[in-house]
């Protein structure tokens, strides 16, 4: 009905509760639902690779799908950029599903249903070709992430974080809606392709209000500086597999929203929003990195590092050239994979030791050698050490900044990378060098499902690090979809 991929995901989403019912009858609810979800998401990956393979090549292609083609109908746009992002969402979805097999003890049907709803929302958001569809899938994504944060309802921390997230993100969503209503008032349509071809919007008095509202609304989800306060609470309070998805992928939804609205509808007024975005992206980097340096709770530390990396991605967008956007998209991919890897590793350590304090976790490598090795590779990548993947995308963003004549901001980003290496080294020191404590002495290695999930992500991270050029080219092609700015 929509596109093949989205249809498949929606069918899986609807049938997971039935599978759960079936599983309860045989007394194997967890096994059946998790295997079904993982297989469903894997088949979605296979569909992307085989059915949509032309969108993963180096030729720019894009098709528009609609059931009833008219100006008011719902549109889906399948393009290189959407397939690039969807592949990331599905990979992280599969690994989080595999990981949570060992993490869950009760109510797995509900968990996997909401998890699949989150992935479906993200995929639909990426594919959407008009703003109504975008809003609808945005809201599916937001609602499922609120409920996943509050999933451990017996812990007061989760409930509090989820309430804070719901109020802030709800206000952000309504701000986006207000901007959409103003866009509708100015143009009479909400179709992205139509809106892109309408020029001369900047004569309208509501024009700059619309841009600011879009920046606030989508920036809130992307953890832009004054609106980042919900992120460390929500990401630290969620179950670890959910934190991996939230940090790696849900932050990207805000970035995608900015790309779809500002870059496609308002390319001619880049001078206004480019400057705002530039200033706030720099502030976001500093706030994220400096707060992360002070944390003792390891999940909060990683969450603050997500804020900093979101700042890098926003900086790439603010540069506005094709190289900048390509760097941002490439960094989105790399950061998503590495941050999911780190949250899953930390999650398996927390699963065994039941503590989140960095001091209490010192010397964990003696009792959990494999998990610690994978964690160290992820941390070295986050510290942007050359043969691993994050280095390449950060290099691309910095390069793009220098080429666009924003060298001073690229320099500031380099300072931030040094700060981020600082807290990565702190964790490396605690995990690998310090002596064991009473907590870490008597724990055993992580369960096999957790090790499988983390090693898949580690292998992807190393492959991108050693051989980045195909992914680099893909992100260049994806970026050309959004590049309408004439500087």
């Amino acid at each position, binding site marked *: 009905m929509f596109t093949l991929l989205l249809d498949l995901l929606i069918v899986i989403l609807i049938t997971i509760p039935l599978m759960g019912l079936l599983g309860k009858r045989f007394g194997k609810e967890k096994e059946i639902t998790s295997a079904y979800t993982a297989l469903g998401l894997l088949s979605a990956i296979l569909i992307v690779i085989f059915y949509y393979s032309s969108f993963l090549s180096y030729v720019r292609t894009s098709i528009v799908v609609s059931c009833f083609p008219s100006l008011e109908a719902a549109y889906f746009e399948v393009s290189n950029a959407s397939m690039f992002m969807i592949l990331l969402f599905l990979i992280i979805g599969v690994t989080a599903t595999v990981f949570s097999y060992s993490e869950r003890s009760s109510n797995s049907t509900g968990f996997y249903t909401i998890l699949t709803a989150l992935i479906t929302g993200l995929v639909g958001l990426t594919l959407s070709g008009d703003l109504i569809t975008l*809003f609808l899938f945005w809201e599916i994504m937001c609602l499922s992430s609120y409920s996943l944060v509050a999933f451990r309802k017996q812990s007061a921390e989760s409930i509090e974080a989820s309430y804070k997230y719901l*109020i802030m993100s*709800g206000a952000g969503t309504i701000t986006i809606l207000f901007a959409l209503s103003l866009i509708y008032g100015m143009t009479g*349509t909400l179709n992205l392709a139509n809106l892109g071809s309408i020029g001369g919007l900047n004569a309208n008095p509501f024009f700059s209000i619309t841009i600011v509202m879009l920046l606030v609304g989508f920036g809130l989800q992307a953890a832009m500086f004054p609106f980042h306060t919900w992120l460390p609470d929500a990401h630290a309070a969620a179950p670890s597999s959910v934190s991996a998805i939230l940090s790696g992928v849900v932050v990207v939804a805000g970035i995608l929203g900015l790309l779809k609205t500002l870059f496609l509808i308002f390319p001619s007024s880049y001078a206004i929003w480019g400057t705002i975005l530039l200033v706030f992206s720099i502030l976001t980097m500093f706030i994220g990195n400096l707060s992360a340096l002070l944390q003792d709770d390891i999940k909060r530390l990683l969450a603050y590092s997500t804020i900093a990396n979101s700042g890098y991605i926003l900086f790439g967008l603010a540069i506005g050239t094709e190289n900048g956007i390509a760097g941002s998209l490439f960094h989105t991919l790399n950061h998503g994979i590495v941050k999911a890897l780190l949250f899953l590793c930390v999650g398996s350590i927390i699963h065994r030791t039941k503590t989140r304090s960095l001091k209490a976790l010192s010397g964990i490598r003696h009792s959990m050698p494999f998990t610690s090795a994978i964690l160290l590779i992820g941390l070295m990548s986050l510290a942007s050490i050359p043969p691993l993947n994050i280095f390449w995308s950060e290099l691309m963003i910095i390069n793009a900044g220098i080429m666009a004549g924003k060298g001073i901001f690229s320099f500031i980003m380099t300072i931030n990378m040094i700060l981020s290496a600082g807290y990565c080294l702190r964790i490396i020191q605690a995990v690998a060098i310090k002596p064991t404590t009473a907590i870490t002495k008597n724990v055993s290695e992580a369960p096999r499902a957790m090790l499988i999930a983390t090693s898949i992500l580690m292998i992807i991270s190393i492959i991108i690090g050693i051989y980045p050029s195909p992914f680099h080219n893909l992100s260049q092609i994806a970026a050309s979809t959004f590049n309408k700015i004439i500087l």
Partner: protein
Amino acid sequence: MVIPLTYYVTCSVILFFIGIYCLISKRNMIRLLMGLEIMLNAVNLNFIVFSAYGVEGIPHPLAHLFSIIILGVGGTTIALGLVITLYAYRHYETLNVRKLKRLRH
């Protein structure tokens, strides 16, 4: 006599800021959700007014459709918010949002 469009838009902007004020100043958790609902209604008013003013006499159906979708989605958000409020009340035994501060670091 037709009322000018600016009056309606001013009204909806005022409604929107009443909602923001409610979110900033109120302490009751349920009132915050009501603040969200007020902001949502400002958006709906905007859509309906713009649909009527596009072409004289013929309301555009797109905006009506969108505002009905917004009503449904808003209802879902508020329902989820109320569930979370209920659990928060069980944990903290108060509805005062300033008392929810186990996460302050």
